[in-house]
């Protein structure tokens, strides 16, 4: 690293994280989301877990694109960059490659991340740059006032699709897994405890962490996820993935997921035919299993899987890049511009 940046890193590193509270991560800007927006909860949980990370505020960067969710960085008392539509993941790549010492977070939405920014997202995931991506999925375009999004259900009637949408929705978890992500999780705006746990796990993961957050848009798509978030319905509609544990769900914890060949199916634990021992046991390090679990997402007969689909170790891009730089320095010595200019064939004119 050059001397100039080194000075900043050194002085920043010698300023350790004080004992923060969530309040220390609230900026002085007024939060301007609609009343009832799921973003409030996600912001609050993020601010709540930040003190636990033990990273000083000045070494944290939140980067966003365009959309309701992308206002997020303004409200975090960290470094922040509210950029242009779809490009947060690419900007974050540059930040992290230039400065592996920083904790880099991307806040994006279903439109920003998977429509206009879909290309950058999949490439970030396959490269495994150590960036935490929070994708707020509300299945609608909020900021442009209610058009369907790449995660809207088929046939969605919106301003731009009065006869119903024709395009089949992305399943963000499957998309991320297909892009060779090393950490893929799903959580819910209205389940603060789970949301906090997922954010912490994402922060701990070395490599790109992809966290899909189901987020209610109270104005344009109110209740899209209520089946998974509300007290009356959630237990029968959601199965929480926990590493090493069988997939049990239901209000009475009387249902489970069993694998029939490669196909997951719901079985009853109440009628004596199946016991917990017959159920699929989650292993978050099993890539094949992660695809099967993510694929449950839009199957009406199956509960919606929530939790960590996959968490595996693979070298991160920026650490490999650093390794190549160090290797080149060992082999060829630190660069010297004057020597470079005079390298190869030269001749002298008297």
């Amino acid at each position: 690293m050059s001397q100039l940046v080194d000075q900043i890193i050194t002085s920043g590193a010698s300023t350790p994280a004080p004992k923060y509270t969530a309040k220390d991560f609230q900026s002085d800007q007024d939060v301007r989301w609609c009343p009832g927006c799921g973003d409030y909860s996600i912001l609050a949980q993020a601010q709540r877990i930040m003190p636990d990370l033990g990273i000083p505020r000045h070494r944290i960067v939140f980067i966003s694109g365009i959309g309701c969710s992308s206002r997020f960085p303004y409200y975090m008392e960290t470094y922040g960059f509210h950029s242009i539509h779809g490009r947060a993941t690419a900007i974050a790549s540059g930040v992290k490659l230039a400065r592996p010492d920083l904790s880099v977070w991307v806040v994006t939405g279903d439109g920003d991340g998977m429509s206009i920014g879909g290309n950058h997202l999949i490439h970030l995931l396959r490269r495994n740059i150590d960036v935490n991506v929070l994708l707020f999925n509300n299945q609608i375009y909020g900021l442009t006032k209610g058009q369907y999004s790449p995660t809207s259900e088929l046939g969605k009637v919106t301003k731009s699709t009065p006869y119903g949408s024709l395009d089949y929705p992305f399943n963000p978890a499957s998309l991320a897994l297909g892009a060779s992500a090393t950490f893929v999780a799903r959580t819910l705006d209205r389940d603060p405890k789970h949301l906090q746990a997922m954010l912490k796990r994402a922060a701990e993961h070395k490599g790109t962490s992809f966290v899909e957050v189901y987020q209610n848009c109270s104005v344009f798509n109110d209740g899209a996820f209520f089946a998974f978030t509300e007290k009356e319905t959630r237990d029968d509609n959601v199965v929480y993935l926990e590493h090493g544990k069988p997939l049990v769900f239901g209000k009475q914890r009387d249902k489970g997921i069993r694998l029939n060949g490669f196909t997951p199916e719901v079985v009853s634990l109440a009628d004596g035919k199946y016991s917990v021992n017959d159920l699929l046991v989650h292993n978050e390090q099993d890539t094949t299993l992660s695809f099967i679990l993510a694929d449950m997402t839009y199957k009406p007969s199956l509960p919606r899987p929530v939790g960590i689909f996959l968490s595996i170790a693979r070298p991160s891009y920026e650490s490999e890049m650093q390794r190549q730089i160090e290797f080149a320095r060992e082999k060829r010595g630190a660069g010297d511009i004057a020597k470079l200019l005079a390298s190869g064939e030269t001749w002298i004119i008297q």
Partner: protein
Amino acid sequence: MASKSTQNLDEVTIRFAGDSGDGMQLTGTQFTNTTAILGNDLSTLPDYPAEIRAPQGTLFGVSGFQIHFGSTEINTPGDSCDVLVAMNAAALKVNLTSLVDGGAIIANTEGFNDKNLKLAGYESNPLRDDSLEKYQVYEVDITKLTELALQDLNLSSKLVDRSKNFFALGMMYWMYNRPLEPTLQWINEKFAKKPEIREANSRVLKAGWNFGETTEIFKVRYEVAPAKLKPGRYRNITGNQATAWGLMAAASKARLDLFLGSYPITPASDILHELSIHKNFGVKTFQAEDEIAGITSAIGASFAGALGATTTSGPGLALKTEALGLAVMVELPLVVVNVQRGGPSTGLPTKTEQADLLQALYGRNGEAPIPVVAACTPSDCFNAAFEASRIAIKYMTPVICLTDGYLGNGSEPWLIPDVNALPDISPTFHTNPDTFMPYLRDEATLARPWAIPGTPGLEHRIGGIEKQHQTGNVNYEPANHELMIKLRAEKVERIANDIPAAEVDGDPKGTLLVVGWGSTYGAIRSAVLKHRAAGHSVSHLHLRHLNPMPKNVGEILSQFKLVLVPEINNGQLVKVLRSRYLVPAVGLNKIQGLPFKAVEIERKIEEMLRSY
């Protein structure tokens, strides 16, 4: 041994032409390096097809490399060639119009077999009929002679065929009295791990030289004495290499890390390739998924405290447009290199053009002024890239650096600069929380502070939404927007205080001023010198800074009765000069994917002087 005479030449232009698989670029490059080492001044023009391996023997698969060298000042790759090395019939057909009357053709006879003649569309063999009467034709069965030289090595016929360009090179080395050693050494290094190929190429190169020396075909060989160049250490350099090194030198001077976000595109990719080598300098190159990620990753790197750069050509710059606006808004240093090529759309990917000037100056939504600099020769790409970086860092702004395919791929001898004498670039990162506001501007430059993540107490947010003056908070107030627009414009305008005054080559006052920018430099200079030698009042102004322009440009223009602006486009700088300075400048425009010939500019000057 046959008796051979030697003639002295001041300058000569040779064109190597063959199939795109014949290795003509390599042959030309080797000849260039050897010629440079001998101390000749030179200029080169690679001319290759967009197809990587077009069908063999076809007209559109012809690849050429022209080198103009001499003992005098050489400013262009040569309007036409004196010697044409044609490896096949198609190469002859495509390039014959470039050959001067009485010029020499060295034809590989095997390349004129029935199949090749048919592919090239010849009804009869031009070597056999009288169509080449006005030229000196030397027929050499290069293919056969190469085979003979290698017959005891038991190589595949493919390998043998691939060596034949070295035979042509060896002959030309003999004819122009150049040593074989530099190329032999290159072969040894390049093929160190492939002894068969090393042996084959070395042997064929020597065979070509010996063929010139011993056969009766060539009666004359030529001597081109070294040029009177400024004393010092020289090297040969291409424009793209010079651009890469200019960026590296600027980053090093500024004590910053260089970060390149780039997507491969012809003819700019060589900058990415070059920078990728120099990891020991801490250079980070990121081959992004697209042009947009190229520029946005570079913006991210600049935000984090690196010198962010992105390299591209016209179509790529179009894709980067929105992000350029973001860089204007967030006021971070960023260097955008556009190695221009023929457009619009995909256009002529491997051919040169200067048609992105207006795109660079104006091609963005909203009021988004960006400084623009241009390189005028291959080695000058170093200076242009360095200057673009200096402005970007000092003024916290994106800067567009324009080169083009002709400069990027062209090469010339370069007097290696003294690194310590390069202009000062000394950025500082802001660190004091007590004096920090993200958009509190420097009084002189109007640059905002560079406050990078990792600095305790300076946590702040930037973005593409309009900023409040000084605080940098999101702000939609009418008066603030206008103020910020004016401030961003003023910041760029003030750069004019920090660049040298424009200098006229020739009398500062007179009848005709030729104004150019970019790669037209050599052709304009040659044409102007010729007219001046004939006693005409003609001067030359070449612009490095296109935005802002030096303060004295208007004053200079007013000192001449006629203003001519030659450009490889449909008239872009001429529009700017006419609208900004209200002068009746006229354009000379060539849009054929080729650089100007000096004679084309000469004639236009002549015509203007005559009708004046």
